[in-house]
């Protein structure tokens, strides 16, 4: 508008009249898009949308391919962040007030119980969906061709998910919090088991690294106010910050590594649900094709007149799918939270551990391993398992058949075989330990070194490694080894977790069901 001939006040009046359109224009950089080109341009230019490519491959939109696991995990995190913010309104991290604050949230605050349930269950559901997401990545061969490092970032996110859940669990300062803190602190101190063995063996004294770690974690020698302050700091600041940074890198790398994986040949026939753009009539562009990014962004690729194969505009195709997944996730979490309450035990009592004193369920597989050896179960075996997971994309470099579930018939067979063999191995090991005991029951005087070196957990890990190598030798394919390994991981995690959760009772004695536990 040419304002040069108007008075200042007239200009002001004009600006005032057009304030709505000028504000909306400034907000969305170009107003509400009405064409495919406009929408595509908005995806590129909008801060929240620019994480997406302007066009999405139809394979990415197939629910049967991704299962939506990564997206669900992300939305669960968003839900946990928001509900966590609400909980912070009432919570205070003091050993004298924390428990009462949580009780208030449960019984006094309007909607408090529901909010706490949503926070708790969305966090715990993250564990399930992050693990399933990870398994999906392996089964569809999606950790290759530049995606190796993003897989490593993913493992970091898995660890952060676990630690966020764990630290959250400690905040109510009830019996569960207190004894989980005791057990975790002592797992941190577990290298003492090793240093003790070697102390004096060669005339040297190793520093008690484990003990120092424990004291740093607790801010003392036993759980107390200092510990709660530290756990709170971790849970509400450091870990969320870390997970945001790593998640940002994770998403960024998905884009930079070329988007989600897809099979080399995708037939467009599988895209019935794709929303086609309205038929164009006239205009300077030919009507038989949609437009790729090259019309909008600078690039060196002379892609004129070649369509990006099997892609559709992200707006609306991808965004509708994302919103649907979000609504489904939120609805499921809220519904579950409506029916199932997050547990709250008695106020923390340092004199009486619960019997059995159990960690949260997602750690009960580890607790089963810890019941063989604190160091191996709490640090050694999980460390080795994570190292093995991280190594997968670096040890399997067969860049064929990306983006196909189980690669081929053989892959499916290997997955089923590993599932059965893994189940038999884990259940067999557990059955042996439950019925026969282990070294300490047979030879009470045995040196701890033997138990650290040879315990059921180690044997299971050794078996998995040997079996995976055998699969590689037999099939002549490292890819089959990866399928086998991740299947073992999943089977071990699920069965050990089930055992620790349901089958272990007071004094960590085996019971077929919690209803068989002695009443005392």
């Amino acid at each position, binding site marked *: 508008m040419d304002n040069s001939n108007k008075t200042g006040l007239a200009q002001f009046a004009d600006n005032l009249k057009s304030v709505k359109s000028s504000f909306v224009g400034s907000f969305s950089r170009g107003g509400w898009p009405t064409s495919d080109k406009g929408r595509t341009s908005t995806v590129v230019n909008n801060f929240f949308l620019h994480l997406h490519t302007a066009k999405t491959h139809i394979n990415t939109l197939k629910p049967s391919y991704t299962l939506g696991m990564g997206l669900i995990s992300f939305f669960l995190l968003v839900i946990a962040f928001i509900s966590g913010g609400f909980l912070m309104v009432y919570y205070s991290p003091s050993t004298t007030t924390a428990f009462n604050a949580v009780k208030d949230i449960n019984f006094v605050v309007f909607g408090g119980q529901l909010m706490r349930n949503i926070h708790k269950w969305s966090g715990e559901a993250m564990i399930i969906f992050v693990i399933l997401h990870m398994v999906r990545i392996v089964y569809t061969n999606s950790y290759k061709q530049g995606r190796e490092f993003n897989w490593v970032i993913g493992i970091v996110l898995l660890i952060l998910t676990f630690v966020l859940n764990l630290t959250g669990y400690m905040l109510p300062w009830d019996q569960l919090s207190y004894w989980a803190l005791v057990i975790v602190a002592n797992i941190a101190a577990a290298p003492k088991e090793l240093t003790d063995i070697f102390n004096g063996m060669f005339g040297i004294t190793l520093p008690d690294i484990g003990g120092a770690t424990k004291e740093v974690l607790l801010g003392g020698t036993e759980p107390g106010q*200092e510990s709660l302050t530290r756990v709170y700091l971790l849970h509400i600041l450091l870990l969320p910050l870390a997970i945001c940074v790593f998640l940002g890198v994770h998403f960024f790398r998905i884009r930079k590594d070329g988007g989600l994986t897809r099979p080399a040949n995708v037939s467009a026939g599988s895209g019935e649900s794709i929303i086609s753009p309205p038929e164009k009539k006239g205009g300077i562009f030919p009507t038989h094709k949609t437009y790729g990014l090259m019309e909008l962004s600078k690039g060196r690729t002379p892609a004129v007149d070649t369509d990006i194969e099997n892609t559709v505009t992200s707006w609306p195709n991808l965004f509708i799918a994302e919103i649907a997944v979000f609504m489904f996730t939120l609805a499921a979490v809220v519904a579950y939270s409506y029916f199932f309450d997050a547990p709250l035990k008695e106020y923390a009592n340092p004199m009486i551990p619960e019997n059995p004193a159990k960690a949260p369920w997602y750690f009960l597989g580890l607790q089963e391993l810890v019941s063989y050896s604190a160091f191996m179960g709490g640090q050694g075996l999980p460390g080795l398992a994570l190292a093995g997971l991280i190594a997968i994309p670096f040890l399997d470099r067969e860049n064929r058949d990306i983006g196909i579930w189980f690669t081929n018939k053989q892959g499916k067979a290997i997955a089923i075989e590993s599932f059965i063999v893994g189940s038999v191995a884990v259940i067999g090991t557990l059955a042996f330990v439950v019925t026969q005991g282990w070294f300490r029951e047979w030879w009470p005087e045995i040196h701890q070194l033997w*138990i650290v070196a040879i315990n059921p957990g180690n044997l299971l890990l050794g078996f998995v490694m040997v079996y995976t190598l055998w699969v590689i030798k037999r099939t002549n394919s490292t890819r089959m080894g990866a399928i086998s390994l991740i299947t073992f991981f999943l089977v071990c995690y699920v069965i050990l977790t089930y055992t620790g959760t349901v089958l272990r009772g007071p004094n960590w004695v085996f019971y077929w069901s919690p209803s068989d536990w002695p009443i005392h």
Partner: protein
Amino acid sequence: MSEETRDKDGVSRRDFLGLAAFGTAILGVVSSVAGSLRYIKANVYFEESKKFKVGTVENFPIGSVKKLDDKNVFIFSEEAGLFAISAICTHLGCIVSPVDFGFQCPCHGSQFNHIGNVIGGPAPRALEWFEISQEIDGSLAIDTAKTVSQGTKYLFA
């Protein structure tokens, strides 16, 4: 000066200064990290004293076993003397309870005999024994920060 100044071993002044700067930077980073880690290890623990009085020797008639619940210590009294055994399991820190064969841990099933030696379960070490001393007023004091070798028994007048 067109040529770089070299000493007799052939290290140029530029390389020397570069290495010195690089080394200083590494040193700075390492000491900052070490200092930051040291920062989070508290100098003072706001906890109850590890040493506490338990009254005079008359409180512990020969043949008795007493558990101080809030201190997690068992005090045994025998002909041979008094001794204090920790009730904290050496596996992962749960509290053991006395049973007929000795002590039983509820968390992961560790079992100890009457003098605290491991007889079952995952515990890596025997239960700790603590120092007992006599204060000037005649009362006994246990110091859970000071462990003594298994079998150390104390006789007090």
